[in-house]
């Protein structure tokens, strides 16, 4: 570790200006080694910190020393009178002419730069929109989310929202927060009936205090207050979203104060929220105030998420401490002792709202930013290589110009003018590409990337592009320019020799190529790991057959559809009508489709396995399903039967368990007829069905339970997602489905019309999204890397033409020359591959949380990536090797 660190440090130290390098360079490296050795005794983390600081400091020193020299050159040039505006214009003209004379060079450089800078700007725009820009609330970094942490149990999430009582316990007793609000994390499906076509809408549900915590005021009207609340009844007031106000009410300001019709009554519009207000979820149409019951005795239902504003001077840590103090006193809110042994682990989860919103999108985005950063470095070293080739081609021109008395400053300036011009044009083209790229990213980006709507190429991204372009210009332009102007080289030129410079360049270029190969291999391995994860995910059997399934959501509202029997009758009839559609094999419905969340979770008592007194019963996810659901989804009935129409009508209290639940409790015997109670409702198992990966293909199938649509409590199936199986393209059924529904109720809107296959694809979208982008980065860098190898080998061959000729003339056979040149290329590639493999293994750990079914140390990917690279390197070396082997000794010797 120490060795690699010192080596890297020494490598960068070699970039110091020659005078400084000669006076203190070696000692600097030595002293740094001393320092690293001394801190190595204090532990690894500290040593790494010291190394990183020292390394960055050295980079900074190199950069500032180099800049100093450039500014000195420029000053000299200015004093010589060659830096007037006139000469800059002249330089630019000259540069344009020179670049036009070399269209191949110009096009390659511009394309390389535009792609690299464009990719960087596009990904930065996404990072900026998602991670960097503050949330659109006043003083947004003081807003936190609060939840109680739970014991780590596979069947429970790691944190739990509040019950009504828990919420009030926090509101009344907290000391750390300046406002505490509750909201429903999932929007409510609602319908608007008056003012035109009936329309299905998404409603956010928040306590008035939650609106106050966020602090954003409506653009029209007012926020709800506690006086607007009515416990246990339909809310009396609502806030409209900007979009709904514009689309449905024609931006009419007099809407405030008017009543609008919803199923079951009227609500008064009290205001319109500003555009972009997207709490708790984006794309809401309206908000309803949420009333929570301080006297509630329902402890099983924890569905109130909480946000709070930290009081002035209170840190997040203090917020955590206060929340944990309150969790320890949950018994005052009515929680019995089993809640503490079975559910709450005593810890609180308090994090900033931004962290909550950004969630796990952070890491993939930073990885992508790192990946495109690699691409930029590769592109820069490639362009630097091209510049070196060009400088080589121009040695004679330079020599002549110097012989004619042209100043060193002028020569340097001309190369600089060319590189700056290219960087600017490349940057501009990059911005165009970035606009297109960002648009593409936003449109194909998975819905799981939060805040997608705030993404766009903005000022900060343009600033970033400017910085990247200047950096790139510096990287690829200044170093070759300085070499071009260096005294050593000019001396060598005067002597008419080129060997000394040749060697220097050769080394520089080899280092650049090795770096390119190493960086590109890291990307190749990274994308390879994602490809393997994606393959593994695709190979997962979801537990149902998604092909040929159409899904859509229906929400029934009272009073037209009363709870209980009327809704059951509606769905029964609907299934009949759907099955009457020609080509439809079967239909069914479920309270929430697998892969979409939204399941209910209940503490469950299995009569044969009663929990001990101090033990909390296990919690399982539940879904309510209609008859025909399992058959339509293709979920096999392993034992017993699936639900029938009787289960809904006769209220038998029957339920169906999943295979994994059977394996958990009755691995050897039948699971039928077992008595199971969920939230106090006794039932008995009538069937066992196959497991479904409900939480996502990347998660193991959890033991789960299905209830019939109705049960002794009446059930709540206002919202059902229907599944329809047919042989035809699922979406082609939509008109027939609409007609079928209209025959029962012409006013009923349907929403979320999707094919099941697209839902499954969406659940893999994060992996496929990262995979595609990393793959793209890897392919681009593989290409650039091979171009780099090709360039260097060609160059070496051209430098050694006379040597090769002598060898051939002395009787070496063409095959030996071929192998020799090939080996040169493979040597570079192999060095790069070894360094790249080390880096890939080190950096692969960053990917771990994104991988599925493979580890970051995946021999197949590592070996595969290396082999691909070596093969490409061999291909890139074959052309120059062939050329070398085919050299006509006499002709070549004459030309040198």
């Amino acid at each position: 570790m120490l060795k690699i660190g010192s080596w890297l440090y020494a490598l960068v130290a070699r970039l110091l200006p020659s005078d400084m390098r000669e006076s203190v360079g070696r000692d600097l490296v030595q002293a740094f080694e001393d320092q690293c050795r001394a801190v190595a005794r204090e532990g690894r983390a500290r040593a790494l910190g010291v190394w990183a600081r020292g390394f960055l400091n050295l980079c900074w020193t190199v950069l500032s020393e180099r800049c100093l020299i450039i500014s000195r050159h420029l000053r000299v040039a200015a004093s010589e009178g060659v830096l007037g505006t006139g000469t800059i214009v002249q330089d630019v003209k000259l540069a344009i002419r020179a670049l036009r004379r070399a269209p191949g060079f110009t096009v390659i450089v511009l394309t390389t730069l535009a792609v690299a800078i464009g990719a960087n700007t596009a990904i930065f725009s996404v990072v900026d929109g998602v991670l960097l820009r503050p949330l659109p609330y006043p003083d947004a970094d003081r807003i936190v989310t609060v939840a109680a942490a739970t014991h780590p149990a596979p069947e429970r999430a790691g944190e739990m929202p509040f019950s009504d009582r828990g919420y009030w316990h926090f509101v009344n007793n907290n000391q750390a927060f300046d406002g505490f609000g509750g909201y429903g994390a999932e929007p409510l499906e609602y319908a608007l009936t008056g003012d035109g076509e009936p329309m299905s809408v998404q409603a956010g549900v928040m306590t008035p205090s939650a609106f106050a915590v966020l602090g954003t005021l409506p653009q029209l009207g007012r926020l709800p207050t506690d006086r607007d609340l009515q416990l246990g009844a339909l809310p009396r007031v609502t806030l409209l979203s900007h979009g709904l106000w514009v689309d449905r009410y024609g931006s009419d300001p007099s809407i405030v104060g008017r009543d609008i019709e919803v199923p079951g009554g009227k609500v008064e519009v009290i205001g319109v929220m500003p555009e972009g207000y997207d709490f708790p979820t984006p794309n809401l149409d309206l908000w309803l105030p949420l009333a929570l019951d301080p006297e509630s005795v329902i402890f099983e239902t924890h569905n109130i998420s909480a946000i709070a504003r930290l009081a002035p001077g209170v840190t997040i840590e203090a917020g955590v401490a206060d929340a944990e103090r309150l969790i320890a006193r949950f018994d005052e809110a009515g929680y019995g002792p089993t809640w503490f042994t079975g559910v709450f682990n005593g810890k609180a989860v308090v994090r900033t709202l931004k962290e909550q919103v950004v969630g796990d999108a952070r890491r993939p985005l930073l990885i992508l930013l790192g990946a495109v950063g690699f691409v930029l470095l590769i592109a820069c070293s490639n362009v630097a290589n091209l510049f070196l080739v060009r400088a080589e081609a121009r040695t004679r021109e330079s020599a002549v110009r110097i012989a004619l008395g042209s100043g060193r400053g002028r020569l340097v300036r001309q190369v600089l003018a060319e590189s700056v011009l290219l960087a600017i044009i490349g940057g501009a083209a990059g911005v165009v590409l970035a606009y297109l790229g960002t648009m593409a990213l936003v449109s194909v980006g998975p819905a799981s990337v939060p805040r997608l709507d705030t993404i766009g190429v903005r000022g900060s991204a343009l600033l970033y592009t400017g910085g990247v372009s200047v950096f790139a210009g510096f990287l690829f332009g200044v170093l070759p320019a300085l070499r071009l102007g260096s005294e050593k080289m000019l001396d060598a030129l005067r002597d008419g020799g080129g060997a000394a410079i040749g060697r220097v360049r050769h080394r520089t270029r080899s280092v650049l190529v090795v770096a390119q190969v190493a960086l590109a291999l890291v990307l190749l391995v990274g994308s390879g790991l994602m490809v393997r994860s994606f393959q593994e995910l695709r190979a997962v059997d979801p537990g149902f057959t998604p092909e040929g399934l159409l899904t859509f959501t229906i929400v029934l509202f009272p009073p037209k559809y009363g709870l209980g029997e009327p809704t059951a009758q509606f769905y029964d009839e609907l299934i009949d009508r759907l099955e009457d559609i020609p080509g439809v094999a079967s239909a069914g419905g479920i309270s929430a489709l697998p892969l979409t969340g939204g399941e209910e979770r209940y503490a469950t008592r299995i009569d044969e396995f009663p929990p001990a007194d101090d033990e909390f019963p296990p919690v399982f996810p539940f879904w309510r399903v209609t008859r025909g659901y399992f058959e339509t989804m293709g979920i096999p009935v392993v034992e017993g039967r699936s639900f029938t129409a009787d289960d809904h009508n006769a209220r038998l209290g029957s339920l169906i368990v999943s295979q994994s639940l059977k394996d958990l409790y009755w691995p050897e015997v039948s699971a039928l007829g077992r008595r199971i109670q969920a939230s106090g409702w006794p039932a008995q198992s009538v069937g066992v069905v196959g497991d479904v990966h409900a939480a996502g293909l990347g998660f193991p199938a959890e033991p789960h339970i299905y209830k019939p649509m109705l049960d002794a409590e009446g059930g709540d199936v206002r919202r059902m997602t229907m599944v329809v199986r047919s042989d035809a393209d699922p979406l082609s059924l939509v008109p027939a489905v609409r007609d079928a529904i209209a025959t029962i109720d012409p006013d009923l809107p349907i929403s979320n019309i999707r094919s099941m296959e697209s839902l499954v694809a969406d659940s893999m979208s994060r992996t496929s999204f990262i995979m595609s982008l990393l793959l793209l980065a890897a392919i681009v860098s593989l290409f650039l890397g091979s171009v780099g190898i090709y360039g260097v080998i060609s160059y070496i061959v051209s430098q050694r033409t006379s040597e090769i000729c002598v060898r051939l003339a002395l009787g070496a056979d063409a095959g030996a020359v071929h192998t020799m040149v090939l080996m040169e290329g493979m040597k570079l590639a192999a060095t790069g591959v070894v360094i790249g493999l080390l880096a890939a293994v080190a950096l692969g750990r960053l990917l771990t949380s994104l991988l599925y079914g493979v580890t970051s140390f995946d021999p197949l990917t590592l070996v595969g990536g290396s082999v691909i690279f070596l093969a490409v390197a061999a291909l890139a070396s074959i052309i120059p090797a062939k050329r070398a082997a085919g050299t006509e000794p006499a002709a070549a010797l004459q030309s040198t």
Partner: protein
Amino acid sequence: MHAQDMQLTKIDTEIPMDVTKNPEVVRSFLPLRPVQFHILISLSEGDRHGYGIISDTRERSGGEVRLEMGTLYRALHRMLGSGLVAESDQRPAPELDDQRRRYYRITELGRRVARGEVARMEALVRAAHGTGLVQPV
């Protein structure tokens, strides 16, 4: 002979006396950059190698001042050029020495410049006396 005297005689051979004693020359270095001042302070007590200067400065400041290697050597490079410090040919006992290390010593000019900087700072602090800005020690 004192170690210091020995250094003095050596310096005299490098830089003509009239230059080191010329107050104009000394003043032209002032004010010193903090890193230069730290280097001169550290070397005023004896010759040191690069890492020695860093650890000495850190100890002396109670951990407050942490020089980075690049910054240090950038300053050393300049100070070698302007004659404030020079490479020392005195080396520690062989069993403690590492042949690859270079040691640096303060020159007479460096010493005078450091004194000048101290005087300049003292004058600044004096100017602040009686204003309530200066905390009684």
